């Protein structure tokens, strides 16, 4: 019952994503939706790390930046895009490994502080190493993505490139969460002691998922750099890292689908006027003026009143309908993706 609803939703969304560029000629909306896709890749990684394994990272923006700068720099130097992409992901993943090795032995607040500090250090690095990053002026003239003769230069082509990657990433992440490694992540979240008592090398698994989330952050950064053609430090701030955490929390811990919903909602929030055309001017201004405050409020309200986020809310809805249809048919699907 639940799994068939889930399948229907996934199919509908996929079709929607695929036909949007053909029915939506507005370039601006296409641009917004491409950013939704880039955020989804970021959040897929953070969802595994934070939503599933319960390990907070306030430094995801740094991996985004590492991917963006590395790949932008390499592509400008004439390296083919696919290689630049591999380089960007690798540097971000290695950065993740270097920060994970010392700090994942830390718990709770200490991990938050360590990742926050790492983010700030990287931001300083992006700003100060002018010869490589262009300093506060940023890195300009990054070429569009291309694979051999195939160039992703138009907004529609870029849209499809990003969303193809989103599709792949979400399928792979969904495969992870419903199998053994996903259960290990949730076990670590539930009780680290209990996980050890089950034979899980918790330090190793935490490092693996941290590196994975850093690599996905790097991947999103690569796509971003070649999408806008320009990167500057102001993109890779603590502010962005906090928004990503809010997206996962709003979606619901331990739910990939929830994280997707949270990401879409919060990414679209500042662009309500473009998405919902008829909205009164005053409402739009109110939302845009208060966007950051709304993000903060959402995080606090979700933590206080909706600990299971959108996913928990959806599950209880479906369960209620399901019980009316046929009582007691609980699907032991697991994963909660």
């Amino acid at each position, binding site marked *: 019952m639940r799994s068939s609803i889930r399948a229907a939703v996934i199919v509908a969304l996929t079709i929607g994503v695929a036909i949007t560029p053909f029915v939506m000629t507005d370039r601006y909306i296409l641009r917004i939706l491409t950013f939704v896709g880039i955020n989804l890749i970021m959040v897929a990684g953070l969802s595994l790390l934070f939503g599933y394994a319960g390990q907070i990272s306030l430094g995801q923006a740094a991996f985004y930046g590492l991917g963006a700068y590395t790949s932008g720099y390499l592509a400008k130097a004439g390296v083919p895009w696919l290689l630049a992409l591999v380089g960007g992901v690798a540097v971000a993943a290695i950065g993740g490994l270097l920060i994970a090795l010392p700090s994942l032995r830390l718990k709770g607040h200490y991990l938050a502080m360590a990742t926050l500090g790492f983010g700030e250090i990287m931001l300083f690095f992006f700003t100060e190493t002018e010869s490589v990053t262009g300093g506060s002026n940023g890195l300009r003239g990054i070429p569009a993505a291309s694979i051999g003769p195939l160039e992703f230069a138009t907004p529609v082509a870029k849209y499809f490139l990003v969303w193809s990657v989103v599709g792949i990433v979400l399928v*792979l*992440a969904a*495969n*992870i969460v419903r*199998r*053994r*490694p*996903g*259960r*290990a992540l*949730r*076990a670590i*979240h*539930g*009780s680290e*002691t*209990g*996980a*050890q*008592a*089950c*034979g*899980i*090398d*918790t330090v190793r698994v935490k490092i*693996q*998922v941290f590196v*994975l989330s850093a690599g996905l952050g790097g991947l999103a950064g690569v796509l971003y750099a070649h999408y806008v053609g320009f990167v500057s430090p102001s993109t890779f701030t603590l502010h962005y890292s906090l928004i990503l955490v809010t997206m996962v929390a709003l979606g619901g811990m*331990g739910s990939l689908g929830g994280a997707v919903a949270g990401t879409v909602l919060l990414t679209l929030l500042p662009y309500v006027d473009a998405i919902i055309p008829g909205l009164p001017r005053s409402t739009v201004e109110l939302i845009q003026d208060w966007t950051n405050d709304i993000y903060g409020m959402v995080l606090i309200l979700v933590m206080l009143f909706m600990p299971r986020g959108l996913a928990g809310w959806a599950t209880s809805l479906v369960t209620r309908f399901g019980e009316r249809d046929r009582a007691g048919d*609980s*699907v*032991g699907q*697991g994963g909660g993706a």
Partner: protein
Amino acid sequence: MSMLSVRGVTKRFGGVTAVDDVSFEVFEGTIHAVIGPNGAGKSTAFNVMTGFDRPDAGSVVFEGATITGMRPHRIVRLGVVRTFQNTMLFDEMTALENVLVGMHARTRVGFLGAALSLPGVHAEERLAREQAHRILRLVDMDDVHAVPAGDLPHGQRRLLEIARALATEPRIMLLDEPAAGLNNVETAQLGETLRRIRDTGVTVVIVEHDMGLVMEVSDEIVVLNEGRKIAEGPPLLIQKDPAVIEAYLGEETPDA
């Protein structure tokens, strides 16, 4: 030769010597009880035996290999598993998933394999789920396989932790107060379950305050008091041991 031997283990916490030069041997195929008043050092001894605490002196040897200093997950992989005085279940996960996590060390699929659905992933998952259902049936809990552990009643939580431990395919199981909080019927069933587990070839060590259960199921008993071993032997001798009766005086009598 004994299966597990505790050799001169001492563990201090600041000024408190929780375990004081304790030695004992556990033989294969037996149920071995560790008893003693509150604060005697039983749980600490378990922590040392399973890698959750490092001893200040002494060692623990399992089937000829020294396991002191190893990390807990490595000890589990050797075949030494434990449960906790305060259950350490994964509350957000279903009963079935809890048991599946117990099978972690006996299964292989990693991040890459799972992500790419490499050949063998489906087969392993299906086998693991079948096996997990079988283990749940062993403790009579298959009907609640889809219920989150956090929603289960106390007695079933205790059983689920045992089931999860069984899923690691242990050679020896250390259970810390498995009967705590159980009613008489549940305790009697637990005794049955423990014997069934022993009969499948798994050696059992229990820390337990329920003397009825201890005297009924155990082959051998070690008594700790204030960190020291004060007696050891079969149930009938322990019940009459003056040092044991003395230690329990003012608390409860061992044959209560």
